[in-house]
């Protein structure tokens, strides 16, 4: 019981134990279960977030082309409606499952857990979640991921991080996408990195373009490196246990 009961019959006011009256408690509980499951299975879990239309799906199609022979990748993609994005990713040659949220503005851990039961995760190296296009709500929902990657397109404006601080605060990597358009837009990579680092001094960044291919090798190498690190840390833990 999480509340200190002074009598059988409540009167006056009752101080609640903060950790147990947390409104996202159910989500965080499932997120921890996901974290344990992917650790057990040696899978790197990536949560990709951005505004709508900044190029998440296109980036994943290009990522699939470059990494499908090196890694066993599975993708879960969230949208309010339609199967379109999952179909696009499958065309690029990797297994993708669509989560249709039916109007919900973000993915919750419970949706990921249920979708994971439908995927064959044997021998999977990396599971990528493509979140609903929204920089607000997905920021509050832990999905059990190892890394949160935020895309910001050059068409969006370089002042976004301060407008959506929690997303940039909780991300480990920022991808500046549609970099091929930089010559035509008043967008400064330097300014967006400065804005993001005022919120999150440790955030890494890469400049990428799915159209020209710029930065995609670096992005793929970043993923390969994180998959390797995850496997190594899991093995170390196994050694300690045995």
């Amino acid at each position, binding site marked *: 019981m999480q509340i200190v009961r002074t009598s059988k019959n409540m009167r006056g*006011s009752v101080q*609640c134990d903060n950790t147990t009256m947390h409104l996202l408690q159910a989500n965080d509980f499932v997120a921890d279960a996901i974290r344990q499951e992917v650790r057990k299975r040696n899978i790197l879990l990536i949560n990709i977030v951005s505004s709508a239309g900044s190029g998440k799906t296109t980036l994943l199609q290009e990522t699939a082309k470059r990494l499908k022979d090196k890694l066993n990748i599975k993708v879960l993609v969230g949208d309010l409606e339609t199967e379109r994005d999952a179909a696009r990713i499958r065309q690029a040659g990797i297994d993708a499952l669509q989560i249709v949220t039916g109007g919900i503005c973000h993915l919750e851990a419970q949706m990921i857990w249920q979708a994971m039961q439908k995927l064959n995760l044997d021998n999977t190296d990396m599971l990528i979640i493509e979140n609903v296009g929204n920089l607000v709500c997905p920021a509050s929902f832990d999905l059990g991921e190892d890394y949160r990657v935020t895309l910001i397109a050059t068409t969006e404006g370089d002042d976004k991080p301060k407008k959506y601080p929690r997303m940039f605060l909780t991300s480990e990597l920022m991808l500046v996408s549609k970099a091929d358009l930089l010559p035509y837009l008043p967008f400064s990579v330097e300014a967006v990195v400065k804005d993001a680092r005022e919120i999150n001094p440790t955030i890494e960044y890469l400049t990428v373009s799915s159209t020209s291919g710029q930065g995609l090798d670096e992005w793929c190498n970043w993923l390969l490196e994180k998959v390797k690190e995850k496997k190594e840390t899991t093995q170390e833990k196994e050694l300690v246990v045995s």
Partner: protein
Amino acid sequence: MHEISLVRNIFRTLESNFSFEELEKINAIDLKVGLLSNVEPMLMQSAFEAVVSAEGKFQNTKLNILLVPILVHCTTCDQTSEIKEYNFVCTVCGKPNNNVVQGTELLIERVHFN
């Protein structure tokens, strides 16, 4: 944000912690909301009213929202400072800092009974 579903979470949390008789006597709920929680107090109030009128529960209950600022703790100076305008720096030494110790809360802090 998704204030309606958060209000439903409040109801669910209370219903799983208190008996039917106790729920009847709740006249106020104090919610602690951090500036980083992406919750807008005014929308939360309207969502609360909307769910109350739709579900007929908690008709005599008031929702109090306590908005709390973002605080970071600097391990170098062992000081806690408030973050203004999302400039995540320690106000004592001026170094960048994102060690948030307050500001992401979304909690029922106190429940008042008749």
